[in-house]
């Protein structure tokens, strides 16, 4: 396939694998424990499992699968809020497909649909706006999710709705921000991470600067990377090179897409429509300062939370869940006390089992080692 197969070439992968092993041999004598490298983004986790990348790595590298899956970190209370909006008879509730199965404390959106709620799967916020045009007598709510990757398209849709004077369209906004979330992971006192692979599609929007504190203040090397298997192997090699040379910098493997200053038009749209919230809760990580955005006062007419006076519900995650310890690299998914027992993809209890991009679900579905666990 044009423009994709080039980044999945198995010969080049073998070359990169060898280069990684060569560097690892240099580093290994200096290590007291294996290196723990975190891929923050669920998209990277997906690629690592899909292509079996972990098995190509030397023993001195352990991948830690981070919290960067917007569906996984959606708190249960917000799902309950979404369900409460969706069951209103005047509402058509629209959502990306993978958010439909996320469990709330009583039901998921999929189950709400089974009980009669008008929940529809869309492929973009523009599809939701189309539904609003076609159903002027109904209120169409879009379940806005995701890091900075998906924020621009949601913001542009709101701006389009404003231009057209559409009154029956609103967002239930759950967008979250990457840098504060990584900072929350870094601030954990028992952190054991040695480096980061950072999400290329987020950097495409926000540029490199928001990641610089990680190298500067926390002395962790970081490489911004794309989503194809060769992207990830090359980024791992770049990360090891920094470690071997005892450097900490923000490097850009995904230069074919990511401009150092990001995308100004996208950022303008985001800043026009969204403003940082004081706090936002992330499932498995708890409340994190400035980790979410809400809608600015100018766009309150498109804010479902204000239109329907949503009183945010807080639901505590089950205490048996050890998602936090998995995310911090303290334990592997299969070492969690409820992994594969009480917590499975059919009945997810913890955040990381919810979406196929979550670390636990990925191990459960694809992990060879989990089969023996």
């Amino acid at each position, binding site marked *: 396939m044009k423009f994709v197969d080039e980044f999945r070439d198995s010969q080049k992968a073998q070359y990169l694998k060898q280069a990684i092993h060569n560097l690892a041999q240099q580093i290994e004598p200096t290590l007291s424990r294996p290196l723990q490298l975190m891929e923050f983004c669920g998209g990277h986790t997906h690629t690592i499992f899909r*292509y*079996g*990348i972990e098995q*190509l790595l030397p023993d001195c590298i352990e991948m830690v699968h981070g919290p960067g899956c917007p569906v996984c970190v959606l708190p249960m209370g917000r799902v309950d809020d979404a369900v409460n909006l969706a069951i209103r008879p005047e509402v058509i509730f629209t959502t990306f497909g*993978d958010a439909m199965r996320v469990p709330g404390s009583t039901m998921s959106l999929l189950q709400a649909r089974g009980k009669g709620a008008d929940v529809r799967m869309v492929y973009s916020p523009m599809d939701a706006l189309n539904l609003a045009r076609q159903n002027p007598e109904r209120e169409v709510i879009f379940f806005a999710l995701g890091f900075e990757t998906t924020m621009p398209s949601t913001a542009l849709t709101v701006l389009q709705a404003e231009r057209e004077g559409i009154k029956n369209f609103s967002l239930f906004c759950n967008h979250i921000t990457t840098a504060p979330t990584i900072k929350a992971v870094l601030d954990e006192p028992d952190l054991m991470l040695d480096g980061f692979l950072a999400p290329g599609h987020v950097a495409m929007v926000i540029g490199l600067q928001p990641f610089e504190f990680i190298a500067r203040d926390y002395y962790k090397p970081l490489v911004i990377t794309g989503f194809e*298997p060769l992207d990830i192997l090359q980024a791992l090699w770049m990360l090891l090179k920094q470690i071997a040379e005892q450097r900490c910098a923000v490097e850009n493997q995904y230069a074919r897409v990511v401009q150092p200053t990001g995308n100004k038009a996208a950022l303008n749209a985001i800043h026009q429509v969204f403003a940082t919230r004081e706090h936002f809760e992330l499932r498995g990580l708890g409340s994190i300062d400035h980790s979410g955005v809400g809608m600015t006062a100018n766009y309150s007419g498109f804010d479902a939370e204000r239109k329907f006076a949503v009183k945010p519900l807080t639901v505590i995650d089950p205490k048996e869940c050890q998602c936090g310890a998995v995310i911090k690299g303290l334990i592997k998914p299969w070492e969690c006390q409820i992994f594969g027992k009480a917590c499975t993809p059919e009945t997810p209890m913890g955040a990381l089992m919810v979406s196929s991009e979550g670390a636990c679900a990925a191990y459960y579905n694809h992990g060879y080692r989990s089969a023996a666990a």
Partner: protein
Amino acid sequence: MTDWGEQTITLAHGAGGKAMRDLIQKLFVEGFDNEHLSTLEDQARFDLSALMAQGTQLAMTTDSYVVDPLFFAGGDIGKLAVTGTVNDLAMSGAIPLYLTCGMILEEGFPIKDLAKIVASMKATADAAGVKIVTGDTKVVHKGAADKVFINTAGLGVIPAGVNISAANAQVGDVVIINGFIGDHGAAIVDARGELALESSVLSDCQPLNDLVQAMLKVCPDIHCMRDATRGGVATVLNEFAHSSGVGIRIEQSSLPIREEVRGVCELLGLDPLYLANEGKLVAVVPKDKAAQVLEVMLAHPNGDNSAIIGEVLAAPKGKVLLKTGFGGERLLDVLVGEQLPRIC
């Protein structure tokens, strides 16, 4: 052929009176056109000795079809309703002979569309060498069903000596598929019109009974065989591994997948191994017969892109492994719920 103009299904078409009799006679009896149906008895009757001459076991199956949209590139609900049931019989090695047809119609459905579906069922039945010999029609209020639901049941005869079961896979066996994976699932996504795709994929909807009989001629000892419908190839392989208590490993680089289908999957974050197929079978055959079986399949119009995709292992028992193009391995598990597009 009756011209139905703009006529639609009304509750009278299911009420047992003249309207229903006319519909059955003009649409179904004339449409399906065979000596069993035209007697208008409440049941079809078969000569036992004729059945016994063809094999030693009867095979029977039923399935219901509720696809949306009703018409898609490469097929429609009628073609699907015949193909699906014929293939369910064929996967046991049976020669499919007779089908039933139960229709649940929504009030207001255009009769000319129903006539198209009936014509498609007849053409598919003829191609598969089966007859639709008895049926049933119900009409429900507008909104109580989605346009048309079809149930078909099928009867076939299994020739002597054929014993195909999901529990028969043996270590060393070879896994074969008869062509491109995921075409039907991709065609349905396209037909729903939610994505403005540049190129359209045709559904692979096709009866496989003739191909199966050709395979059985060179290898009467086919161990396992199943058509990879809902849940796709990954689900079938898991069923074999689980029922037989063996491991199965497939090679990613050997999987026949069209560029267009890969494109749809990339776009939506789907895995073609879980996409539905309506004309694909997965067979497990003894290694020493694999080359012969593959040769026969490649020479058959329903198998011209057949490929060996994997092998049966002693371990891990009940699990399917996918060997990636990078040399890594991962589990290929059964799907949890419906395959839903990812957010990013």
